């Protein structure tokens, strides 16, 4: 079962939030170097899957293994330190902190911020221009870029990115797609994306979550061709 080519293996996890049984068996494998996308309707459990991996809503059952090490039962800060970067939905940057401070907070002992800064500003030149401005003053697209950039400060093994294109203008989405493509050359990505076009451009693999369960997975090109499947679980054509 354990495959050395997978950065992440999530097996049959169940997660409760309060007394609500939100995830009822989610299995996701993320091959090294890939972009894997979680698809599914609103409320299907995609965000909860990412939060369960991150330890923010710890699963009560099932296993989560990052390159051979179990993540279950560990606190979120430890999981982050083990090399998992998290870009939450709704662009949750720190609005009162400057761009510099938003990035600095993610820095760990021994990180070479200079070298990472070159890489990050290469991807997102705007962030360099607004370095000393509060995050709250940035546009929606810039805030999303900051949220992604923040997760790039440490050299993570896996990035969890939740709906990066949500609410952004088409041109901004194009540059974000480009940035995620470039960063995926360095880091494996598990993406949640409602915009099916964006998902199909970026991803190698997909996993469909429906009603708290993973129901289908495979190569994204196969899904693009399977209109019936797309219609059934995603309600888009």
């Amino acid at each position: 079962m354990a495959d050395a080519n997978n950065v992440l293996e999530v097996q049959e996890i169940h997660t409760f939030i309060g007394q609500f049984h939100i995830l009822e068996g989610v299995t996701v494998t993320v091959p090294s170097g890939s972009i894997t996308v979680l698809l599914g309707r609103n409320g299907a459990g995609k965000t909860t899957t990412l939060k369960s991996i991150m330890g923010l809503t710890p699963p009560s059952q099932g296993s989560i293994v990052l390159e051979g090490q179990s993540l279950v039962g560990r606190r979120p800060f430890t999981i982050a330190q083990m090399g998992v970067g998290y870009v939450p939905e709704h662009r949750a940057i720190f609005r009162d902190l400057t761009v510099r401070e938003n990035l600095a907070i993610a820095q760990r002992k021994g990180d070479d911020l200079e070298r990472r800064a070159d890489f990050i500003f290469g991807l997102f030149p705007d962030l360099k221009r607004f370095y000393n401005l509060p995050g709250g003053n940035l546009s929606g697209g810039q805030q999303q870029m900051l949220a992604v950039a923040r997760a790039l400060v440490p050299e993570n093994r896996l990035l969890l990115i939740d709906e990066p294109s949500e609410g952004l203008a088409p041109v901004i989405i194009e540059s974000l797609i480009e940035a995620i493509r470039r960063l995926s050359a360095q880091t494996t990505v598990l993406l949640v994306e409602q915009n099916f076009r964006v998902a199909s451009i970026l991803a190698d693999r997909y996993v469909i979550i429906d009603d708290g369960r993973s129901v289908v997975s495979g190569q994204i090109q196969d899904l693009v061709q399977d209109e019936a499947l797309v219609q059934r679980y995603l309600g888009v054509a």
Partner: protein
Amino acid sequence: MQRTRGTYMLILTLTVGLLVFSFVTSAGDLGSFGTTLLSGLFLGALYFLVASGLSIIFGLMDILNFAQGAYFMIGAYVTYSLFHMDALKGIDVNLRFPLGVLAGTIIGGLLGAVLERGLLRPLYARPIFQLVLTFGVAIVFGEALKAIWGTEGYGWSTVTSFGIHQSQFEIFGRQFGSYRLFVVAVGVALIVLIGLLLQRTRIGIIIRAGVEDSEMVEALGINVRAVFTMVFTLGCAVAAFGGAIAAPFLGANLGMGNAFLLPAIAVVVLGGLGSYMGTAIGSFMVGLAVAVIARFASEFLNQTVWASITPMLLLILILLLRPSGLFGKESR
């Protein structure tokens, strides 16, 4: 931006209003006006030392620490009793006071750490229980102080280090205690120091980020629980420090806890929950309001009770007129 300018105008208007009111009612007696002003600044500095912890702890951890006043009181009692303890009389008087303050501050901090680690941490999933718990702890601390030191309050003896306590300075033909000025200076120094800590250091960035979204801070690899313990400890230590430096002037008594907790709550609400700048400015505004109204009430109404209910009246007014406070977020 518009709102920020409005806020500063409001602060200016209220402050000037209070000063004019005080000036007019002191009927041209500059000495009396000066005393009220100094008394307001003195109270403001002490309110800040209680309110700063209250505000940062609330912003970061969503805990309204009702025991914050008790820590102030503990600082005062510890410093008082070490300074006056017979066994320690051999220590030079100029050393005894700073040592007493240090001990009061450290004991306050340690008791803060115990409260957070031992009692609050298991209850992070149940905020209402935490509120009830800090309330209970405040009562327990009060009873413990009563058991150790009795119900009678203590007035500071006339001896103090560096002669600070006795020394006076004169303005407008009136004598003012230098010690109050010293407390004001210490308060201002701490406003700057804590402000620098929040703005310039890594832990400060973490605290400010945590006030916005502590879950996200944790997801970036920072042990937020350890930060909680540290902030709670420091917040209690600063309150105890306030009690410690207040002791030479106010002595130590069981009424101190509430006398400083209630204004501090008013300060935090006035300043806007979680706003450091608001807490600093709000402290001096509430201090001034209490001093002005106390003076007015004792001189014209023959009723000192107005002074003690002023913080609560202010709190109610703020909640009715501007619930988000001066610098609070419009909605959260």
